[in-house]
């Protein structure tokens, strides 16, 4: 029987239909993957399962019983735990305290330290994750913190585990150990709902995969019955055009640092594990920002939250780095700014196409295009990009790749860091591999496949 199931669930936000009669379930001991483009309704569905939002119509049943969650706490109490992308850990507390957060064992008014450590240890043991129980959680890597939040769910006897993009910030090795954890929990009978943009992963670990589009489940396939291309076709409702390879011959050097040099017309990839120094190298090349921009350099940072003013309009975000050109206390030419914004919205296919729309209302992929648009508006010659396609859907990712190629073909230089080896190998003329803050190897196109890059950064 289904552990958790949705029947005909609908949800509207104003005029937008987020969910339009969704049937979906996860049974015990199963990994059911949920895929779809941004805005397809995946997030809304898992928020309803997790008690964050309530459905307008339809039913949610847990073990066959009708439920109405009034809060995330109610869903959690019913054994449904959601592990978000932004992990909920309290930095000031220890590993053990974070595992047992919300139900610290007590003896009288005081926390029972012995039972706290014992029960937290048991939960981590179930995951076969060895962590120092007394260590402050701030000392942990992202993957370890993720394990802490999963252990927290287990300590509360979660029988449904919802994982939202769990591998987005993990290195390949860490992905493997997460998959082992998932495998163990599946064997124990936990129902796992797995949301991800990484279709290769889903083909590997999912027992079942459902595809959402425009608020509906448009396809449901069993393990072995689907390949990645099928998923993409269902997500988009059409075929994805293959990317074209138009390798321009690289021109003069436009940016030189001790680590590398960037040439006009070339895309350079930056490979490295988390903490290997790729992000800090990009920041260093872009420091201080005001001077770097004057020299024609633009940075697309790893966290979109760090690059956009969410409450402000698409137009204001696009012209932000170009303000200097208008003269600080001169009258700003609104019509010129509007024209620049409209032109780039059209060129980059940013949706919705309204320059006055608040940027926070756009999907992740479209927000990323806005970040790109602002550097095109500022007419930079060098683009530094940190994980430019992380967490965005397949179609938007293909568009970003095309824009990077076009930028290079137009005489620009691109340096982009990515944890996705395939993306690096496909786009780059040359890949600079980093390890512990240093350049470990430089690989030319044609002489590097995913395996070579993996070896260079390990």
């Amino acid at each position, binding site marked *: 029987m289904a552990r958790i199931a949705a029947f005909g669930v609908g949800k509207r936000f104003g005029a937008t239909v987020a969910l339009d009669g969704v049937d979906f379930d996860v049974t015990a001991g199963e990994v059911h993957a949920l895929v779809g483009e941004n805005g397809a309704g995946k997030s809304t569905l898992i928020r309803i399962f997790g008690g964050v939002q309530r459905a307008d119509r339809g039913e949610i049943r847990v073990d066959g019983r009708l439920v109405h969650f009034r809060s995330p706490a109610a869903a959690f109490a019913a054994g449904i735990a959601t592990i978000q992308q932004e992990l909920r850990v309290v930095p000031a507390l220890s590993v053990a305290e974070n595992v047992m957060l919300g139900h610290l064992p007590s003896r009288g008014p005081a926390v029972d330290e012995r039972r706290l450590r014992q029960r937290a240890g048991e939960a981590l043991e179930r995951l076969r994750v060895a962590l120092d129980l007394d260590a402050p959680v701030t000392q942990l890597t992202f993957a370890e913190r993720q394990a802490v939040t999963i252990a927290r769910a287990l300590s509360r006897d979660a029988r449904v585990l919802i994982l939202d993009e769990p591998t987005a910030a993990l290195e390949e090795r860490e992905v493997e150990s997460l998959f082992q954890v998932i495998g163990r929990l599946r064997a124990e009978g936990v129902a796992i709902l797995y949301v991800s943009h990484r279709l290769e992963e889903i083909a590997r670990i999912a027992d079942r995969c459902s595809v959402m589009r425009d608020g509906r489940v448009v396809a449901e396939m069993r393990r072995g019955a689907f390949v990645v291309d099928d998923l993409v076709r269902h997500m988009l409702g059409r075929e994805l055009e293959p990317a074209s390879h138009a390798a321009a011959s690289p021109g003069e050097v436009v940016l030189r640092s001790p680590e590398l040099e960037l040439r006009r017309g070339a895309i350079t990839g930056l490979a490295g594990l988390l903490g290997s120094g790729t992000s800090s190298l990009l920041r260093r090349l872009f420091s201080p*920002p005001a001077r770097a921009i004057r020299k024609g350099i633009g940075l697309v940072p790893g966290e979109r939250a760090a690059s956009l003013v969410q409450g402000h309009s698409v137009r204001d975000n696009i012209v*932000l780095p170009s303000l200097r050109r208008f003269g600080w206390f001169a009258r700003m030419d609104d019509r010129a700014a509007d024209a620049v914004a409209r032109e780039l919205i059209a060129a980059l296919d940013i949706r919705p196409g309204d320059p006055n729309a608040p940027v926070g209302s756009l999907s992740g992929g479209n927000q990323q295009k806005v970040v790109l648009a602002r550097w095109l508006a500022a007419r930079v010659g060098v683009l530094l990009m940190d994980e430019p396609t992380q967490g965005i859907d397949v179609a938007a990712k293909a568009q970003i790749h095309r824009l990077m190629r076009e930028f290079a073909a137009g005489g620009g230089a691109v340096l982009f860091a990515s944890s996705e080896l395939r993306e690096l190998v496909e786009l780059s003329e040359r890949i600079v591999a980093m390890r512990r803050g240093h350049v470990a190897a430089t690989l030319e196109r044609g002489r590097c496949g995913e395996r070579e890059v993996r070896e260079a950064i390990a």
Partner: protein
Amino acid sequence: MKRVDVLVGQIPLATLLVLGATMSVLSEHFLTPLNLSNVLVQSAVISVVAMGMTFVILAGGFDLSVGSTVALAGCVAAAVMMQAGIVAGVGAGVAIGALVGALNGFVVTVLRVNPFITTLGTMVLVRGAVFLFSDSQQVPIEGSLPQGFIDFGVERFLGIHWLVWVPVVLLAALSWVLGKTPYGRAVYATGGNREAAYLSGIRTGWIVASTYVWSGALAGVAGVMLASRLQSGQPTAGEFYELTAIAAVVLGGAALHGGEGRLYKTVIGVFIMVVLGNGLNLLNVDSHWQRVAVGLVIIAAAAADQLRHRR
């Protein structure tokens, strides 16, 4: 969605109109030329302070020192005026205000001290400095300020007090600065997301510091206006002005975390505060109850700010 936003944006004005209508029903004295003129004059000084506060809050900061700065600017302006004439006096008052603002800006951006604590410190420090400077007496102790300066606090132009023209002109000029210049956009962007603004090449440290200088200088202008109205510099002047100004900014619908808000709505917020106080006075409400009412209004406005951003 959009229509809702437009309606929410007009809440400050609607509040003011409802408040005004209520007061004119409850008291026959409210809607008289004399009383309305009083409301305008009472609003004038605090409006100037609140406009400066809007700059600081838009950029994501906070300024508690403006009340003390009003007093300091008034006393310094009066003292200099006795020696060197009106123009020098006014200039000195505004300059000393800008200097306090620059000090705040330096501590907040270079030493990276929390704005609340920084300006709490300067609030106390400046108030102490005023009492030292004036020897705890009004300035000047004997004699009187130049007649032209005193006339400015009493006389009218086109039927409206000169004092009221000051915020009118400032509102027009500063709205232009905030709304129409790239500098203004940079202030909004810095308050909206400082990291994003910094990575877009905006020198966010300078932008933040500059808003404190605006706030200080405008508190200086307000101090000079108040000295003209009181016909002296008073070391005790401007008490609680910082609270009224912050309340006005919040009532005007600006976001306390920065990046959202309009200057003219702050002025509407000032009017809400002044009309409330004026109306309760006319209705002979005990002054202690008035404080309770004002406190409730401030909390209600801040709660509305939270609700609006949770949507």
